[in-house]
């Protein structure tokens, strides 16, 4: 299996700046911002009342089985839409055989637990007895929630619904390493292909930080109070999905890959001082057989928070030296959590193919060697080594 290599043949994304990658790129190029006062819920009580939300978008056309919409939360809907676009972008065949082995790996940081419904149910327990008594919780709270509530809130629903809606019946898995989850899903999916467990996998991230529980957690962690040089932390939402294929299989299909995924590394441990990210950079370089000087661009999907920025800068300086880096996620998009890493990759690869090179958001050039990285809230670090492919 040593000669099995992995290429990216399709990209799809939905973001607060556009319901396609192209629309998102155009909005970025035009300098538009998606950051505005949150509308999905009343955020006025938080230090950050803003959000980058996907608005005026109907998930229905992306769903081959519309009845399943009631079983999905926003991230799952975004995941299905982005995966549909990735398949279309790669001209992936619709026949049954092609779908039978198609894998799915989506990373997400978690569900919003349908806070509105849950809050309504919790209102029937004013003394909060359900907090310490499971029987009371089952009776008063769960009994007032639609039995489908649990199904919608399960962490694996993004991957599950992509599999169901696209008839992708290959391996199906979910990565939950927080904000690094999306990029890690891409890395793990590449391993499936390298090991021969799959020839093609839809892999990426889908998430939404625009929900009350997340805002409460960010407030508690004082993330909203932290303004780094890259701006302030504004939660966002969306999905970005890549179609990964075994290189020879892609050649036989006659598709032109965007890039080859030559290395992947994931590390846990402390984020302090950039330890986990620096280690992941070294591992990814080693896996790809690259030297630090080979790297023409390093993207770091991390929110504009001082600790993350320091981590990224330290890891880049230590391992990569003077590489061109985009160390803070695009402030006009907000931070789409686990979707940030794959979105960074999708935007970079799309720019690459379009041959565009203008602006800070689009620095990649053809055949560039890119290290795409993401940092999780708890020190998780993931790095992918991608080499852009010249049109043949």
């Amino acid at each position, binding site marked *: 299996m040593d000669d099995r290599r992995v290429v990216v043949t399709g990209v799809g994304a939905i973001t607060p700046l556009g319901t396609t990658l192209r629309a998102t790129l155009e909005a970025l190029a035009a300098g538009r911002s998606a950051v505005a006062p949150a509308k999905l819920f009343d955020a006025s009580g938080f230090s950050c009342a803003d959000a980058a939300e996907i608005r005026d978008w109907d998930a229905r056309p992306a769903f081959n089985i*519309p*009845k399943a*919409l*009631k079983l999905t939360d926003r991230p799952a809907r975004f995941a299905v839409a982005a995966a549909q676009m990735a398949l279309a972008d790669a001209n992936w065949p619709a026949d049954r055989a092609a779908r039978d082995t198609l894998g799915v790996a989506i990373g997400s940081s978690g569900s919003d637990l349908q806070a509105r419904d849950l809050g309504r149910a919790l209102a029937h327990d004013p003394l909060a007895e359900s907090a310490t008594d499971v029987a009371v919780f089952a009776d008063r709270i769960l009994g007032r929630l*639609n*039995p*489908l509530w649990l*199904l919608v809130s399960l962490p694996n629903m993004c991957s599950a619904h992509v599999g169901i809606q696209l008839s992708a019946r290959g391996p199906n898995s979910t990565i939950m390493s927080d904000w690094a989850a999306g990029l890690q899903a891409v890395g793990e999916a590449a391993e499936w292909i390298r090991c021969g467990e799959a020839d093609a996998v839809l892999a990426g991230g889908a998430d939404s930080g625009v929900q009350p529980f997340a805002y409460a957690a960010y407030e508690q962690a004082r993330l909203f109070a932290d303004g780094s040089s890259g701006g302030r932390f504004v939660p966002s939402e969306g999905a970005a999905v890549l179609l990964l294929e075994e290189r020879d299989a892609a050649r036989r299909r006659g598709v032109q890959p965007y890039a080859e995924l030559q290395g992947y590394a994931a590390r846990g441990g402390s984020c302090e001082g950039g330890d986990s990210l620096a280690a992941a950079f070294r591992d990814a370089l080693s896996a790809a057989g690259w030297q630090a000087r080979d790297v023409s661009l390093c993207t770091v999907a991390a929110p504009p928070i001082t600790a993350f920025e320091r981590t990224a800068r330290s890891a880049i300086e230590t391992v990569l030296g003077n590489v061109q880096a985009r160390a803070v996620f695009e402030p006009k998009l907000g931070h789409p959590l686990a979707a940030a890493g794959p979105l960074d990759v999708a935007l970079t690869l799309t720019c690459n193919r379009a041959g565009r090179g203008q602006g800070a958001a689009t620095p990649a050039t053809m055949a560039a060697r890119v290290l795409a990285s993401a940092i999780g809230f708890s020190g998780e670090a993931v790095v992918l080594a991608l080499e852009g492919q010249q049109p043949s």
Partner: protein
Amino acid sequence: MSGEPADLETRVKHIVAGALDVPVERVHNHASLINDLGAESIDFVDIVFRLESAFGIEISEDDIWKGSIDPSSEATIAAGVERLRATMPEFRWETVPAKITRAELPALITVRTITDYMRKRLESAAAS
């Protein structure tokens, strides 16, 4: 009570249409929830919850499943199916096997099965 049956029927149809994500025009009285409207087992759980919430009653899990058929033996199932054949001529009987087993009973649940069940429940609630 004169206006209630039509109102009940409309409400049930809207609940079924909402749960199964189909236009309410497709929710005919004789439509099989499974064969005609695409319901899966999980949708029945959803429909029961929606009915409970809308009408303020509790519905035990098996109630609607059983409908008007006693599923305890082959004989009681056969007798129940015969009764249904007589009372539901508009049901698309060609979509179910000639000899119906317990496993196939859910396919016999129509929109009217639910409306009839709800009417009985609401009437007994009003009487008590």
